[in-house]
């Protein structure tokens, strides 16, 4: 017995003393690159090691027999190996497979700029950049004009992208199309966007090659995502030389829903009294604007959002007439616009997700053109009766969209869905003698789309999409394929390619036409190189765009009426973007440059020419600096565009053709803008109110900017088309109560 006991004791001690196995080896990935920092662990034991910078490891295991070795590393799939521990040494080559994750995988960035707070390589701007760009003046599209691809156009609103017209850019809020994104056009003045930049948390500005989920835009898609629940309830007040406003945002106690309301009244009379305008205002612009929002979390990942908006604005001005000396051209406008957007996204079982959205809007314009004499009496001049007319436009628009998404392993995803777009435009023109011409165009566009994301590895991704559309008005159907690819060249660099066909209906104002019209078409080819670190972004992009079936007009009784789809054109160029938050201390800046070579023959152009909205060289420099001592944010921007061509195209009834009565090139465009934001409350503990004071000056050097020429009807006289004022100064204060809305308020310029 004694011996037996002894043997047990010996056995126990032997089992602890001699069971030691040395495990050595190297951890690599499937490209034979070492995986530094990989963890090796014997299951249910303390034994293990971390791979060194060359992927090598060495450790002692004290257990015996069959054991499980777990090898894991961030970004790789964890593997388990069964190993036999029996003393001595085990040599183990270990190979890990990369996990395809959002952080490690390549992102398709060709043709798109993202402004959001997501940590993605595509996000070259943050959402706050949209409002802190000095030349942006608090307008959503303002900051985008400092990015490559967009033109510096000052005489009319919209984004003119890569040789395209403003109408070739479409805007989407939470997935659905927005009609009348800008205030109604006013001759020679760029209207502002209707929506406050503060209601958006994410912006994707596509300068080409965009996803099959979107359509009806030949050049560009501007995709805006509205904000989710606020962090806290708050109230805010704003006062400036342009407007007065107040708002309230209430977050429910369970933090699952919120509602808010804002009202804003703007009146430019005081500002125009100080800053002399080119136009002689009979009625300075006045606007009332009210918006409502409601957001509710429907589940962990589900969210229902409503945003409603109503605005009414009016203005009237005169300008010296070119047609008759000592007389003035008069323009007046009253606009009412309502917009509702309801969107719902929800995650379903089995990695399905759906996004549904509906938007409805109405727009009413009452516009009147006329003439006045020196004493400001309305007059009707013989021979110039055509200058007196009224336009009454009423539009109703609806857009509905449903997208279903199924996620597969490793980021692979399939999206498909449908979109319906309805528009009903009623235009009445009443000419000088009281005769009214009525026109009503109803259009229904139905679309089906599908898109597949394919991630072959972390380094290679592709997106295949197709979109089919049917237009009831044109009674035509199109099918548009889209493909994009991205390949990771290194840890920080990647290359992307994109190709796609894009169709767009002729604008409704060209309907009805002399002959049936068909879809206009553009084909995009894009190649991009991008290198990103956490504080810098470098981008180089080259593109080629081919236009077909553009609208041509014919002159009928002195009016240009759409007659065919025989127009065509192309655009090519390259663009450069550099953003740097690192190399100059405390300074954040970006530089962009675009080279554009484009020609087109459309509308009344006599031949293919570089259109008057296309500058060959466009560049911007944007700088931001926070001066801690002064609690002030300083923003500076410089925009440049080389001289655009200008044309006066006249119709010759003898040859039945148009010709250039005048043509040339306008001077180069320069604009230096500057904005200061003073935040006295910053850093204060629990402030009851938080104030931001803003001073911004556009065109601080008072440089003369010419956008083109206005011509008299007979083409005999011309006048420079210049901004309403050379320089503009804005002063305002924004105060929020209850919550520190520093970032929000920082540059609420308008």
């Amino acid at each position, binding site marked *: 017995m004694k011996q037996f*006991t002894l043997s047990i004791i010996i056995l126990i001690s032997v089992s602890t003393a001699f069971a030691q196995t040395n495990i050595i080896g190297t951890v690599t990935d499937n490209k034979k690159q070492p995986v530094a920092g990989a*963890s090796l*662990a014997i299951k249910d*034991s303390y034994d293990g090691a*971390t791979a060194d*910078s060359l992927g090598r490891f060495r450790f002692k295991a004290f257990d015996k027999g069959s054991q499980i070795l777990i090898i894991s590393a961030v970004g790789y799939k964890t593997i388990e190996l069964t190993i036999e521990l029996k003393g001595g040494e085990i040599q183990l080559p270990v190979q890990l497979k990369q996990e395809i994750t959002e952080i490690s995988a390549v992102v398709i960035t060709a043709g798109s700029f993202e402004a959001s707070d997501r940590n993605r390589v595509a996000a070259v701007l943050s959402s706050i950049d949209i409002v802190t760009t000095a030349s942006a003046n608090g307008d959503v599209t303002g900051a985008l004009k400092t990015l490559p691809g967009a033109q510096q156009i000052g005489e009319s609103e919209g984004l003119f992208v890569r040789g395209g017209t403003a109408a070739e850019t479409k805007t989407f809020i939470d997935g659905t199309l927005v009609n009348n994104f800008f205030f109604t056009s006013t001759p020679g003045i760029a209207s502002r966007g209707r929506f406050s930049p503060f209601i958006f948390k994410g912006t994707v500005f596509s300068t080409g090659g965009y996803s099959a989920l979107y359509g009806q835009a030949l050049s560009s898609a501007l995709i805006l995502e509205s904000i989710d629940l606020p962090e806290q309830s708050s109230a805010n007040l704003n006062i400036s030389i342009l407007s007065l406003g107040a708002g309230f945002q209430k977050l429910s106690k369970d933090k699952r829903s919120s509602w808010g309301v804002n009202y804003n009244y703007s009146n430019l009379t005081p500002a125009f009294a100080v800053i002399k305008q080119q136009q002689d205002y009979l009625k300075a612009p006045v606007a009332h604007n009210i918006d409502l929002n409601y957001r509710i979390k429907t589940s962990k990942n589900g969210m229902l959002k409503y945003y409603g908006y109503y605005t009414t604005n009016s203005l009237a001005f005169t300008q010296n007439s070119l047609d008759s000396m000592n007389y003035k051209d008069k323009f007046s406008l009253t606009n009412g616009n309502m917009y509702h957007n309801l969107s719902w996204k929800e995650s379903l079982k089995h990695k399905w997700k759906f996004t549904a959205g509906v938007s409805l809007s109405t727009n009413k314009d009452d516009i009147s053109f006329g003439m006045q004499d020196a004493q400001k009496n309305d007059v009707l001049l013989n021979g110039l009766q055509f200058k007196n007319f009224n336009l009454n436009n009423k539009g109703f628009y609806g857009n509905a969209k449903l997208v279903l998404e199924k996620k597969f392993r490793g980021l692979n995803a399939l999206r498909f869905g449908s979109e319906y777009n309805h528009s009903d435009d009623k235009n009445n023109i009443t000419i000088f003698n009281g005769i009214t011409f009525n026109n009503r165009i109803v259009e229904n566009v139905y679309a089906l789309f599908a898109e597949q994301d394919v991630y072959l590895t972390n380094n290679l991704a592709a997106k295949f999409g197709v979109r089919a559309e049917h237009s009831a008005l044109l009674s035509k159907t199109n099918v548009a394929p889209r493909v994009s690819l991205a390949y990771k060249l290194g840890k920080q660099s990647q290359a992307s390619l994109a190709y796609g066909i894009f169709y767009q209906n002729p604008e409704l104002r060209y309907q009805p036409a002399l002959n049936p019209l068909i879809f206009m078409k553009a084909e995009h080819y894009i190649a991009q190189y991008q290198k990103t670190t956490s504080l810098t972004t470098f981008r180089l992009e080259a593109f080629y765009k081919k236009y077909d079936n553009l609208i041509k007009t014919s002159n009928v009784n002195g009016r240009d009426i759409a007659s065919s789809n025989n127009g065509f054109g192309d655009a090519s160029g390259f663009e450069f973007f550099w953003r740097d938050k690192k190399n100059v201390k405390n300074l954040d800046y970006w530089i962009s440059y675009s080279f554009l070579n484009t020609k087109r023959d459309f509308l009344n152009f006599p031949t293919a020419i570089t259109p008057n909205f296309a500058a060959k060289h466009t560049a911007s420099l944007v700088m931001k600096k926070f001066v*801690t001592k002064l609690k002030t944010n300083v923003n500076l921007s410089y925009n440049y565009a080389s001289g655009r061509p200008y044309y006066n195209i006249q119709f010759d009834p003898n040859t039945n053709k148009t010709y250039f009565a005048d043509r040339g090139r306008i001077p180069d465009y320069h604009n230096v803008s500057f904005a200061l934001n003073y935040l006295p409350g910053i*850093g204060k503990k629990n402030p009851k109110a938080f104030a931001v004071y803003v001073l911004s000056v556009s065109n601080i050097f008072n440089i003369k900017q010419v956008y083109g020429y206005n011509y008299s009807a007979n083409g005999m006289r011309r006048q420079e088309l210049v901004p309403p004022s050379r320089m503009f100064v804005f002063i305002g204060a924004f105060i929020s109560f209850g919550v520190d809305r520093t970032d929000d308020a920082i540059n609420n310029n308008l």
Partner: protein
Amino acid sequence: MKQVLLGLFFATIFANVFAQSERYAGAMQKNLEAFAAAKTAAEMHDLSNSFERIADVEKTQWLPYYYAAMTEVLNGYMITDKAGADVIADRAELLINKADAIEKNNSEISCVKSMIASLRMMVNPMQRWQQYGALSSQLIEQAKQQDPSNPRPYALLAQNLFYTPAQFGGGCTTAKPVAEEGVKLLNAFQLKSPLHPSWGKTQFDMVMDQCK
């Protein structure tokens, strides 16, 4: 004989259990010594892996996960290219959540959570200050409430304030009183075991030295 055998049998079991806890204490002690000496990001990550291995075996102990998370955060603080810090913060968060599941409402754990929020902020301070700066401060407050005698939330706060410009309500004027308060707490703090968190002195000394 039977009794002797039975006695021996129990003795072996006791010895095994004792050896087990001794092994745990020994391994932790060894790691804590290595932690005190660690100077590089790679060493911190190695320690994090090592603490995690202990944690995965000792399923009822929160300290190994706590240290595994802590060393991983410090790895994140030490790497030069902060672009990779999000992934590190993700891992640290996973580990601290495991500690949290074992030991709920723990002040020390809230401190590490605050450090993780600060790490995420460092990836892009300009953009993330609002979200993660606020979260970090909130977690420090939470740690204070969970254990008012814990000096470590004060160490984090004093350090944060010291590095915040005076114009934003930071600097010596606000950091020093917090450090002074923390030093008092640290001197009075009763350690539950040699393995429990005891850090804070370095942070207080730094602030007190710089703010003389």
